[in-house]
């Protein structure tokens, strides 16, 4: 069973969200039922797919690592690095299935997103900002059902604030209304528009030829946007009904004026996560240790590492690696242009400049997604 698709899923989702609505309207705390909801939904979805045992092992593994890390007084650097590696291990094993097909048996839905949740706890525990997190909150955060299969990527601190906040009836109603709307809007995007695009535009295209590839590039870009943003929106909508405000994942990405702007509008929760935990950490350590003569070099190197990891996270195949490096190059070029060309900012403020930039950005992004789609390689 795939989350957020098929009549049966939505029927069960609606049925199991009803008690949350009742609790929310009665101004009762939602988190206990929320965890129950998460466990039941996971048991249904993963049970039907025959992956429940794998999920339990995965959960115990990650929760164990998080608990140990958050309870160590002052974990050494090596210990912390080891924990990060162990937390990444299941994801890496699954990704390696491209090379060793026998690893495919570990393939578990949602691993990439759940790994991100565990990783932040381990990383933050090392800097001493998370101490003795309760098992309840940890489990709820690690497993939180709505975002399990396709994000968005939430942050622990934000999540914790949400589930312990009191919502009065009026606030809950507002959240509920927006949640229901987002669910339906997302379904319209992901199940309606993206399916139409696939059936009417992409699947009739011939496999070979230059023009079909160009057409595929445009079609796939829109298809992926409607599909992905639709699923994100449904996840966000369902989370609202549980009193959790999952962060937004898309904000009109095709209006981006440059590549950096694009990454603050497309799969925002992933780019923010990587910015904070990869780019920022890397650049800060470079600056502190004066690793580069020109500090900006650290920034460019940071972008490449950041984007390569972003590509690799999607899978260890050539096209994702190229996709990552392509965006590393684009973001660096973007920053170089911003700094090197005095006219950049004024140009960006004129209306015709904006039109040109938005069009150029759109095409650069579409080309990237064409690489991503695997049609070329």
């Amino acid at each position, binding site marked *: 069973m795939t989350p957020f698709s098929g009549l049966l899923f939505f029927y069960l989702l609606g049925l199991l969200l009803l008690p949350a609505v009742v609790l929310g309207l009665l101004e009762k705390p939602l988190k206990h039922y929320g965890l129950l909801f998460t466990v039941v939904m996971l048991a249904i979805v993963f049970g039907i797919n025959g992956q429940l045992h794998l999920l339990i092992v995965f959960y115990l593994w990650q929760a164990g690592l998080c608990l140990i890390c958050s309870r160590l007084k002052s974990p050494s650097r090596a210990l912390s690095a080891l924990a990060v590696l162990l937390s990444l291990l299941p994801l890496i094993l699954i990704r390696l299935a491209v090379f060793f097909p026998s690893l495919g048996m570990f393939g578990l839905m949602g691993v990439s997103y759940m790994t991100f949740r565990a990783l932040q706890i381990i990383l933050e525990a090392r800097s001493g900002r998370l101490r003795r997190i309760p098992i309840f909150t940890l489990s709820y955060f690690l497993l939180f059902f709505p975002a399990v299969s396709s994000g968005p990527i939430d942050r622990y601190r934000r999540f914790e604030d949400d589930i312990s906040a009191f919502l009065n009836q009026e606030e809950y109603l507002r959240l509920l209304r927006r949640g229901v709307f987002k669910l339906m809007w997302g379904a319209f995007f992901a199940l309606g528009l993206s399916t139409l695009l696939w059936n009417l535009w992409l699947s009739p295209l011939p496999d070979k030829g230059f023009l079909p590839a160009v057409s595929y590039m445009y079609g796939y870009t829109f298809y992926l946007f409607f599909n992905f943003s639709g699923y994100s929106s449904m996840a966000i909508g369902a989370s609202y009904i549980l009193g959790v405000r999952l962060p937004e994942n898309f904000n009109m990405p095709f209006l981006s004026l440059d590549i*950096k702007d694009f990454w603050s509008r497309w799969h925002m929760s992933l780019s923010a996560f990587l910015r904070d935990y990869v*780019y920022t950490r890397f650049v800060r350590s470079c600056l502190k240790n004066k690793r580069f003569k020109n*500090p900006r070099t650290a920034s460019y190197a940071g972008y490449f590492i950041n984007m390569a990891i972003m590509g690799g996270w999607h899978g260890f195949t050539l096209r994702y690696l190229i996709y990552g490096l392509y965006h590393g190059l684009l973001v660096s070029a973007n920053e170089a242009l*911003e700094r090197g060309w005095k006219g950049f900012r004024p140009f960006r403020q004129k209306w015709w400049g904006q039109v040109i930039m938005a069009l150029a950005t759109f095409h650069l992004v579409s080309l990237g997604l064409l690489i991503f789609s695997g049609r070329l390689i």
Partner: protein
Amino acid sequence: MKIENEIMAILNELTGAEAGELEPALDLFETGLLDSFGVVSLFVEIEERLGVSVAAETILRDEISTPEKIVRRVKRAAEC
């Protein structure tokens, strides 16, 4: 006042803005004065000069979008 002056000085250096251009309520991200690299450099500088450590990954962009918000955030970090 020391914190405020120091932060404004750092911001002026980082953004290359003219003296007085940085209004306390000016949105630094909207105007493109501050980017990801700027944020990292800002907090590395603050840590070096003021000895206040703020982990950049725990900050929401919204919390540091203007000079006055940055000052508030750093003061909060200095208190605890």
